[in-house]
């Protein structure tokens, strides 16, 4: 059986603390480039992973299907595939589907069945549901993941895709042939879990619609965040920090309409001592955000990179308990857990800097809005 792993050791049945490496590259003018640079960058931080999880997300890779949701799905077996496809066909129109091309490598084993579907919501069904396209897609993706045994949608955005596996990230990149994809925004993750999850779905990034997150840290607010966000239709099946952080961003930014800067002010809120010193108008705003969304404050160490269709956000926790540096050169923006991961691809870069605690660095495509 492919992907065999004791069910009780999977993400979702146990909560597994992890350390990590993260890296991201973003072209502000939307210039596309292949996966080689991001693989090189994350590979430099090899020692920050332990071979138990690696992954990438890339934006701009499916321009020919830019209007369609690209679903990347892991299946444990063909029965799961049949069940999931029956469900997908019921709720979506499938425009294209194929197995995701991979390269055999001895370093990546136990691979599940990995398929890709380009879909759009079934028009009549969606109209009947009264939901907008995003909510409709989200609801049915969550259904597949929580209800269909052995099927797991690990990427569901438009013109973007996540690629992940159990292994070191550079081997994962090789496995998925990322040199064949061209995107304008790449994020990557190397994982250091404290015990052996061994399940591909548990690797990162975690992607939800167009939002993909890589995260380094172990948040102490996890269960407070999880129990709150689950009130709004999300289901935290994996019990990972990245999953709940992605849902928080999706809820605040996409559903409620907070800007990324406001979303960051909720998740990594300034301390009251700082808010109390702010000018009146600013103080009112930050007090409002902290009070209204106090259960979405994220505490404990984290540094995250969030990919969007037209931008990237780097955010660290309010005490800066995890390293992260950023830099810019020309139209390219870089962020990584360590400076070496930037210099290995851009040796002459100047002005590498470490964003402060709780400081959100948000870069958008030219003319784009946060």
């Amino acid at each position, binding site marked *: 059986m492919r992907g065999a792993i004791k069910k009780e050791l999977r993400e979702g049945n146990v909560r597994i603390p992890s350390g990590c490496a993260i890296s991201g590259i973003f072209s502000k003018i939307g210039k596309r480039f292949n996966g080689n640079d991001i693989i090189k960058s994350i590979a430099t931080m090899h020692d920050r992973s332990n071979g138990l999880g690696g992954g990438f997300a890339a934006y701009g890779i499916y321009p020919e299907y830019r209007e369609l949701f690209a679903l990347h799905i892991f299946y444990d077996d063909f029965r799961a595939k049949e069940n999931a496809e029956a469900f997908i066909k019921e709720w979506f129109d499938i425009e294209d589907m194929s197995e995701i091309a991979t390269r055999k490598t001895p370093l990546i084993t136990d691979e599940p069945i990995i398929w890709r579907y380009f879909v759009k919501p079934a028009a009549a069904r969606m109209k009947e549901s009264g939901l907008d396209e995003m909510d409709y897609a989200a609801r049915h993706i969550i259904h597949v993941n929580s209800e269909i045994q052995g099927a797991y949608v690990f990427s569901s955005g438009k013109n973007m895709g996540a690629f992940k596996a159990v292994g070191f990230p550079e081997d994962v990149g090789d496995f998925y042939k990322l040199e064949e994809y061209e995107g304008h925004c790449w994020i990557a993750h190397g994982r250091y879990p404290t015990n052996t999850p061994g399940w591909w779905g548990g690797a990162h990034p975690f992607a939800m619609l167009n939002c993909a997150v890589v995260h380094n*840290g172990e948040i102490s607010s996890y269960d407070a965040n999880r129990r709150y966000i689950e009130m709004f239709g999300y289901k935290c099946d994996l019990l990972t920090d990245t999953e709940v952080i992605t849902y928080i961003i999706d809820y605040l930014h996409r559903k409620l309409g907070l800007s990324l800067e406001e979303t960051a002010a909720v998740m990594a809120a300034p301390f009251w001592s700082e808010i109390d010193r702010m000018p009146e108008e600013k103080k009112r705003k930050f007090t409002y955000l902290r009070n209204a969304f106090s*259960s979405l404050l994220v505490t*404990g160490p984290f540094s995250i990179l969030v990919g969007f269709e037209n931008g990237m956000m780097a955010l660290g926790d309010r005490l800066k308990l995890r390293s992260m540096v950023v830099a810019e050169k020309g139209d390219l923006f870089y962020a990584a857990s360590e400076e070496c991961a930037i210099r290995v691809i851009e040796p002459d870069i100047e002005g590498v800097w470490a964003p402060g605690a709780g400081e959100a660095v948000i870069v958008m495509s030219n003319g784009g809005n946060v």
Partner: protein
Amino acid sequence: MRFIYPDYEISRNLSRCIVCRACERQCSNDAHGYDEDTEKMFAIDENCVNCHRCVSICPTRALKIVKTDNTFRENNNWKVDIIKDIYRQAESGGVLLSSMGNSKDYPIYFDKLLINASQVTNPSIDPLREPMETRVFLGKKPQAIERGPDGSLLDNAPPQLELDVPVMFSAMSYGSISYTAHECLARASQKLGIYYNTGEGGLHEDFYQYGANTIVQVASGRFGVHTNYLNAGAAVEIKMGQGAKPGIGGHLPGAKTVGDISRTRMIPIGSDAISPAPHHDIYSIEDLRQLVYSLKEATDYKKPVIVKIAAVHNVAAIASGIARSGADIVAIDGFRGGTGAAPSRILNNVGIPIELALASVDQRLRDEGIRNEVSVVVGGSVRSSSDIVKAIALGADAVYIATSALIAIGCHLCRSCHQGRCNWGIATQRPDLVRRLNPEIGFQRLVNLITAWKHEIKEMLGGMGINSIEALRGNRLMLRGIGLNENELRILGVKHAGE
């Protein structure tokens, strides 16, 4: 013939006693006397309530109170208390009364929950070196954001209470406790940036100055309720029930309705103040909604309305109904909550533990997606900072304390409040006794207690790697049960230690 031998004996070390007669002067229960003939002190054990006033005041430490070793034939079914209660009722034909909370040997779940700490994978945080936040807001949270024409966020939050530390002094009426005790609570609340609760006896005009830190209560008797009173506080609390005596009302004996108490309650001097068991304008949940909105109208929608209930069997559904009734905060009082007087059988047998009530209410409100509609405040025996941490991790926004606060200002838990002769000047209206409570010292001791607890809360938060108490609220992964069965763990929503 007297069937009942006293529970406690006054033990006097005659070699230490200097016959200063302080014990005799201090005891309002007449447990001490002086024999002119022998020039020695004597004790009347049956009058002693074990309040330790004499023990504390004795300059030579000549006194201690010991449990009597007089015994009945041992019987696991007919325990001493049960036999004595029967004697008492056979003599008096009356309902047995007690004070303070349920003292019986039921499980104390706070003592069966353990708190987590960080090791290796994430760092603990030192509150002496890093900011550690305990500020919370209570009240309904906005359901959606709104923006002004310039795109700025509008403050559409309903009225909120802001607390520097998530602790409030819960309702104790002026009447059940003394003027001075109220003064201590009011001043300490102001100093600490928290709130105290008037209870159902109205608000003495001297204390309107502490209104910004006062919660005014509206109970079934409506004593002392008028427009100015409602608008004097920072929030209005509707008292539907009390953990010590769910399902029954209150009774302040006429003897306590003296002077300013009569004036504050707006009832004649010497008249019994009887609070009916239900509010007679609330026979159902839709009636509650009307009172909630009447009070909001009366206060111009500027003050949060709290609905306080006793923790009873169906508490989760009731709290859910309250959340939908327009209330901003629901306060739940567990079966160990204190009282100035309650029938003993009710005190000891009605209601459920606050830990279980809290866990089921918090979960129900989340299941219904309305946890944001109300804040949850719990009381009913919160005894220490670790109880507070556990309550918040189970899902509370803040806690109410009363017994702990009274202990801080001198209460020794003799559970005799209903007799009105409190030797510590707390639960009495006798001017000579009230004078014993020094408001300056009482105020300072309350400030000390909450300050100390705040330090301890910060230490525990830091240990968990959390630097704001908001991130602890409902964070049940930070708790593990010890010695609990599957049902208890399921209701509390925690794993067992070792899992």
